């Protein structure tokens, strides 16, 4: 479940020097840096679709997402014999599904963005500090990471929810717990590599303090990695939120999230298959969309900076 916690070790370590890289053959891959901008833009299609659907949900004259109507429960979507009054059908309480999915998607996005941001800040801080200073700080970080990795997040999540109650904040907290490690580990690695690079030595020679070096010189170089990771995590957290909601560790019952709708859909698979299929499709679209967006970012930056660290 807490998979991006392990994403850290998965990102391949870029070659530390340029000697190892040939400037001859372009990398044997399809959608990568040497492509034209047009081909690259294709990567943004899924995310575009995701946001287009949300936009449709906002703009179309649909009933309010919270309006219940028991006589109208479990109506089929328009492509399966339903009417345009409810383009994606209704759920078990007669609420319009498209309206609910829109609301849920926005809520899930909000939660993911907040969680990913906090995870990024926390993880970057820990990683840079550990990479810069080494020693016991580094060991402490390793210990924290191992603890987070060893205890399955479910256990922590359940106990946390028992202590603090079910709320959006707790959901975000659990997501952050799983997400910070990726940044920490990657940043630590890259910080250590950069520590020996020329411009850092130059800065040290000219008398910059270690903090100064960290903030002014290292961070901008690490930005591309962070951005890619952030994009990937946004999608991953939406998935994880669905699982947490299934286990009862999600946000308050009245806050509809995309994962919550998938959960409802799974329970209603016989009477209302469209609930799970459409919301599941949206989740998949978001995840693929964000992952490809991350690829797009990396490609753009690869192109821009040539063969250096990016």
């Amino acid at each position: 479940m807490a998979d991006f916690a392990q994403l850290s070790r998965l990102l391949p370590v870029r070659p530390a020097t340029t000697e190892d890289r040939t400037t001859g053959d372009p990398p044997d891959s399809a959608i990568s840096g040497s492509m034209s901008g047009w081909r690259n833009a294709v990567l943004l299609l899924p995310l575009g679709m995701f946001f287009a659907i949300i936009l449709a949900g906002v703009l179309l004259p649909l009933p309010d997402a919270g309006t219940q109507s028991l006589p109208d429960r479990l109506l089929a979507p328009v492509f399966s014999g339903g009417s345009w009054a409810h383009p994606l059908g209704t759920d078990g309480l007669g609420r319009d599904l498209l309206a609910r999915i829109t609301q849920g998607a926005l809520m899930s996005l909000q939660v993911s963005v907040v969680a990913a941001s906090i995870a990024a800040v926390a993880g970057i801080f820990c990683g840079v500090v550990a990479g810069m200073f080494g020693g016991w700080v580094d060991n402490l970080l390793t210990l924290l990471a191992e603890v987070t990795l060893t205890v399955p997040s479910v256990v922590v999540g359940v106990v946390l929810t028992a202590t603090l109650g079910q709320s959006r904040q707790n959901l975000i907290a659990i997501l952050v717990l799983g997400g910070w490690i990726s940044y920490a580990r990657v940043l630590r690695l890259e910080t250590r590599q950069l520590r020996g690079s020329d411009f850092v030595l130059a800065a040290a020679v000219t008398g910059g303090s270690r903090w100064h070096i960290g903030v002014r010189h290292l961070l901008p170089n690490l930005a591309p990695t962070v951005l890619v990771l952030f994009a990937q995590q946004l999608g991953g957290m939406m998935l994880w939120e669905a699982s947490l909601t299934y286990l009862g560790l999600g946000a308050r019952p009245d806050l509809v999230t995309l994962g919550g709708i998938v959960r409802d859909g799974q329970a209603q698979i016989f009477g209302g298959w469209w609930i799970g299929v459409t919301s599941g499709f949206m989740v998949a679209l978001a995840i693929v969309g964000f992952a490809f967006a991350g690829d797009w970012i990396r490609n753009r930056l690869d192109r821009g900076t040539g063969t250096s660290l990016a």
Partner: protein
Amino acid sequence: MHSISRRTFASVLAAAGASNLGLPRQLFSQGANDNRLDTFTIDLTGGPDYLDPALARSLRDWSIVHSLYDSIVHLSDSGKIVPLAAQSVTVIDDLTLEVTLRDGLQFHDGTPVHADAVKRGIEWVQQSDGPATGNFSVISGVELVDDLTCRIVTGEPAAWLLSQLAVWLVLLPEGITNESLVSKPVGSGPYRFVSQQPGAELVLERNPDYTWDSPKGLPLAERVTYRFVPEAVTRIADLATNQADLIQTVPIDQREAVESAGGQVIETPVLGVTFLRIATDVAPFDDPRVCQAVNYAIDVETIAQTLVSPAAHRLASLFPDSRGIGFDPELQPFAYDPDKAKALLAEAGVAEGTEISIQIVGGERDDMFEAITGQLEDAGFSVTPVATDLATFNSQWQDTSAPPLRFVSWRPMFDPHTLLSLMFFSTGPLARFDNPDVDALILAAAADTDPDSRAATYRKLGKVMQEQPGAVYLWNLTSTFGANSAAEAWSPRADDYVIATSGTGEQE
């Protein structure tokens, strides 16, 4: 009155409609009821938490416990407590019950069942820290009269005791330990323990000595396997693939799927109730008009019928149906009248948009809960739902900072005394309700050993608790099972235990 509706249908050519996923229909095998089945598999919603009869507290626990053990009495289909392992149970006086066991009963290990087993059973409950320990403390002693007879003596009159005995007093052999109860349970019930895979399944085999004319019925298979399957969809898949013969709890929207897979849906109302407990010690619920208003504001009947079960109906009180004492057929449930609700709220000075919160257990995103919340909002409240885990929920019964409304299911309701004394008696450990009239009626009924006057007292209580409600009365609990042809001989019990016996005899 005894209403068990059983859906039967032809298994031929169940062409799947567009609304289900075309589950294959299964051909019925020859349903031979005269012969016992070799195997019978039951899917429960989860494993038993406790196999110790003194600690058992859920339907899953009791289904297995009461397959292994017999009590002296049990709940008959008509809702009466009737003798089971006992030949007779006589009320000697206000404080004494005389129990005479049937002759010739045996435990699974071959030892005979004598009256000391009753004493052992009672003492075992009293020394445990289970849910019934408090109740059993009213028993001051058990006197052995002869091999098959004993007298249960109580410290004060306890008319409700018999129903508690039906659930928690089981006949235990000698040499019981905490460990033996879990690893090798020995009782005198219709099935013997074979094996257990924790978290997966539990296997029982027929007790060959269980041949007497038991009101519990006779074993219908040589071997019974209980499987623990938490997901409803998976249970239905099990039924469709014949991996299970009987499945517990089929949600209302999945009943069609069971049928098109060739199974039957067996639906029955259960002696249990659901309600929203109102804490009357905080505003705005300290005004009975507000308590009435929330009763009028919710269309309980429609919610029950569409989201729960066709066998679920709006309750007028805490007494579910005529099988239980205290049911008043004359008493009408609150009508769904949102205008009246608003009028009452205005009268009581409750402003539009008053914030209230409502608490449920766990993360179950039940439609019914959201429907209720929605209708409360329509009535003019601003509702915050709060979901907590069971432990936290149970710790907050009397917490005045906890939400004033909480969603409660209560079963079994063989006798209403336990629920009333715990939750609606002013000094009860779960109570946030204080009404001297109600207190007086509860006490009177508890000490009254005459069933008719006791029933009259409870009926009066029902009326009083409509004028000054301590709860929003929702619906009676129901049980919906899915069954294939192998389960033809099985029918649900009034106590809702899932025991693989057939021929539950009608008594009285």
